[in-house]
Every structure is written in structure tokens, then in C-alpha cells.
């Protein structure tokens, strides 16, 4: 179980804003943080990773206290065993792909694990390339491999697929699901893409102006009620209009409208 309680006053776009988050999520699953820009999602990530201190807060991951301001417990990012994939991937331009992974691996890297990750992420042919010579999708894979070599207890993904085109995005979503299952990862994912959240996340927290306004399974959060009947359709959800009670989906490149 991952338990997070945070309080921090932020200077947002509309002046001062309180970031007040209090949630519990299960391990070994993807939990999405959904909300508009400036809602406090990235700040929450910076606090969870140890880059920023909240005024008050408590973070417990797998029973281990990472932060408890009331007891003055503050673990460093290294002690937290956390990995963070930034929106711009933050690959080090002075190192090639392999060295980026080795740098993250620490002083005595497990070379078998490095090799395994390079193969799993299909980076064998690219390992000597500098990040700036890679495509967006390739950079994303390197960033993920670099995160996983740290064997994190919690993986933070800040809009990792936002800058990619649709085709690569869908392929990497599948890949991410496969990797999550394979390594039994606990992932917190920031995303603006409802379709992506439906596909990847088991749980979603809808954040607005620093507070969680809704949380639950994606279908509950985005539609407001749980469907009782099940229909297996492979489709991409384009838009959910709760006021008109309409879902727009794409099936076989054709747009369908469905009332519910």
C-alpha cells in the first residue's frame, strides 16, 4: 500500500493555491493523476521524489516511512528507492544510451541487469548513440530503462507519452503495460489523456486546484457511474462529455458516438 498525505502552499497561475492531497493506492499497479495544468500534479511528484519539501506531509510506501514531517523523518531521494521519468525525459546529453543507464545504476552496476534492460527495451543497436540522435519514442524507452535499473519501489511517470505521435504512443502504452506486469511495478502516472488512463491505469485521482475531486476506477471517475454490463470492444476513447452523456470512440478508424 502507498499512503500519501501532502500539504503545501503554491503560487499558482491564479495566485496562492493550497496543494492538499490525501490518498492511498495499491502497490504493483498503475495509478493515474489526472487534471488540468497547474493543478499541482508535478509538484506532488517533486515532493514524493524528495526534490521538494511540503509544509506538512506523510509518505509511506510498502510500510516504509519516506516522509513524516510531524516526526521529522525525511529520507533522501536515494534512500526512497524511487525513479522519476520526467516529461522531457532528462537524458544526459553528454552520455550515450548505455552510460545513461550505467550512471543511474550506481557504483557497482549489475551488468547482467543492464544487458537485460537494454535488450528488453530494444536498445542494443542504440546503446552507443547520444540521446539527441534518438527519436522521441527511443528516448522514452531509454528513460524507462534508466528508471528501472534503479529497481524502484515507486516509479513516477510525468506525462511520459505526451510528446509522441499517436502510433508510437499506442505502441509504447502496450509496452508500458507489459513492463509493468513483468517487473510488478508500482507506478504513479501523470496524464491528460483520458484514453491513455483508461488503457493503462487501474485507479485514477482527478486533481483540481490542488485537491482530489474524484478518485476511483477510470470508468467511475470519467463517467460518474459504474456500468453493470460488459462489452468487449477494442477502441480508443476520444472524448467523454458528461453533460451530454456522450462518449466518442474510435473503432477501426471510424468515429462512433454512443449515449449512455
Amino acid at each position: 500500500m502507498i499512503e500519501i498525505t501532502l500539504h503545501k502552499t503554491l503560487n499558482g497561475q491564479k495566485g496562492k493555491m493550497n496543494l492538499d492531497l490525501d490518498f492511498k493506492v495499491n502497490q504493483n499497479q498503475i495509478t493515474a493523476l489526472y487534471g488540468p495544468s497547474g493543478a499541482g500534479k508535478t509538484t506532488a511528484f517533486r515532493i514524493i521524489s524528495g526534490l521538494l519539501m511540503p509544509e506538512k506531509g506523510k509518505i509511506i510506501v510498502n510500510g516504509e516511512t519516506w516522509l513524516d514531517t510531524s516526526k521529522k523523518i525525511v529520507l533522501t531521494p536515494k534512500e526512497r528507492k524511487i525513479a522519476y521519468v520526467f516529461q522531457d525525459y532528462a537524458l544526459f546529453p553528454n552520455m550515450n544510451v548505455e552510460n545513461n543507464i550505467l550512471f543511474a545504476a550506481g557504483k557497482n552496476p549489475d551488468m547482467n541487469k543492464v544487458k537485460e534492460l537494454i535488450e528488453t527495451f530494444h536498445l542494443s543497436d542504440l546503446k552507443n548513440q547520444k540521446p539527441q540522435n534518438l527519436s522521441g519514442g527511443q528516448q522514452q524507452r531509454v528513460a524507462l530503462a534508466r528508471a528501472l535499473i534503479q529497481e524502484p519501489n515507486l516509479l513516477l511517470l510525468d506525462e511520459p507519452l505526451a510528446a509522441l505521435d499517436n502510433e508510437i504512443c499506442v505502441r509504447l502504452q502496450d509496452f508500458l503495460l507489459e513492463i509493468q506486469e513483468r517487473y510488478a511495478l508500482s507506478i504513479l502516472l501523470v496524464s491528460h489523456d483520458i484514453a491513455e488512463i483508461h488503457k493503462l491505469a487501474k485507479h485514477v485521482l482527478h486533481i483540481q486546484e490542488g485537491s482530489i475531486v474524484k478518485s476511483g476506477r477510470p470508468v467511475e471517475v470519467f463517467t460518474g457511474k459504474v456500468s453493470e454490463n460488459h462489452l468487449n470492444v477494442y477502441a480508443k476513447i476520444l472524448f467523454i462529455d458528461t453533460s451530454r452523456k456522450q462518449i466518442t470512440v474510435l473503432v477501426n478508424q471510424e468515429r462512433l458516438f454512443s449515449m449512455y
Partner: protein
Amino acid sequence: MPLVLPPTVLGFYFLITFSPNSWLSGLLNDWFDLKLVFSFPGLVIASVIYSLPFMVHPVQSELSSLLTSLREASLVMGKSKRTTLFKVLLPNIKPSLLTGFVLTFAHTVGEFGVVLMIGGNIPGKTKVASIAIYDEVEALNYGNANQYSLILFAITFTILLLVYMVNRNEIKRWWK
């Protein structure tokens, strides 16, 4: 301040600060047996302070233009601030470091006011190239002045050329 202050003014203040009667000079003399006025170490220290902005400015502006996420990514990986600086930040601003180095060097080589004030133009000890040129011109030895000037010109031109080639990876291409 060293950037905007006239060199002679800066040199004058150095002279006052490091004069044998000042407490700082006494302290340096007692503890380290160091005399900074009219000596080569004094000349070097004054030049470093005078030229520091030429190194700091390009490095500072390049560091601030680097993505914050690079620094943060390294810190989340558990790397210390020192490791982050030496392994991530500085290697990614190499061209600026080199530019800063060259600007500082060129600025120091051509320096006149500060080194004359603090160094005192003592032959074989604190006489530098730019002052030597001035001395030769004053003594109407244009031949010598021309020779010194050409040497300085050649050194600075070679360094500039090297920097240009390094920054554009020309040397690596040549090597291949």
C-alpha cells in the same frame, strides 16, 4: 564590480589593500609568508579577481539555461550535488567553459592598469607583455614593440582558432 570598475581604480584598491601597512597584508605575511604588492603572486591574484566575471558570466548563463530536469534527475538517482555538478552539469556546458577560459585569458594577457599598479613593472619579476610593449614604444624601440605585439597576436589567434575548432568538433573530424 570588476567588470565596470576602471582597471587603474581596481589596481589602486588592490595596492591599498595589500600594502605592507594593511592588516590583511600583515596577516598574509605572518601566516603564509606571502607578500602580494610588487610580486608575481599578487599580480596573479589581482588578475584572477579582475578577470573572474569573464569566466563566471558565460558559465552562469549556460548553467541556468540547462534543463532543470537534468539536475533533478541526477539528484533523484541519489547522486550528490558534487557528482551532479562534475558528471552532469559541467560536461554539458563544455563550449561555455572553453569560451569563458579564452575570454578570461585574452582579457588577462592584455591587462595593463591592474598589473602595473599591483605588480609595479619590475623586470624579470612582474613585467608582463602588455607593459613591455608600452615600455618599448616609450623608448621608441618600435622593432621590439612590433615583435612582442606579433607574438601576442599569434598566441591569441591560435587559441581562438583552437577554441573555434574544438567547439565545432573540427579536431575530431581532422583526426579521423
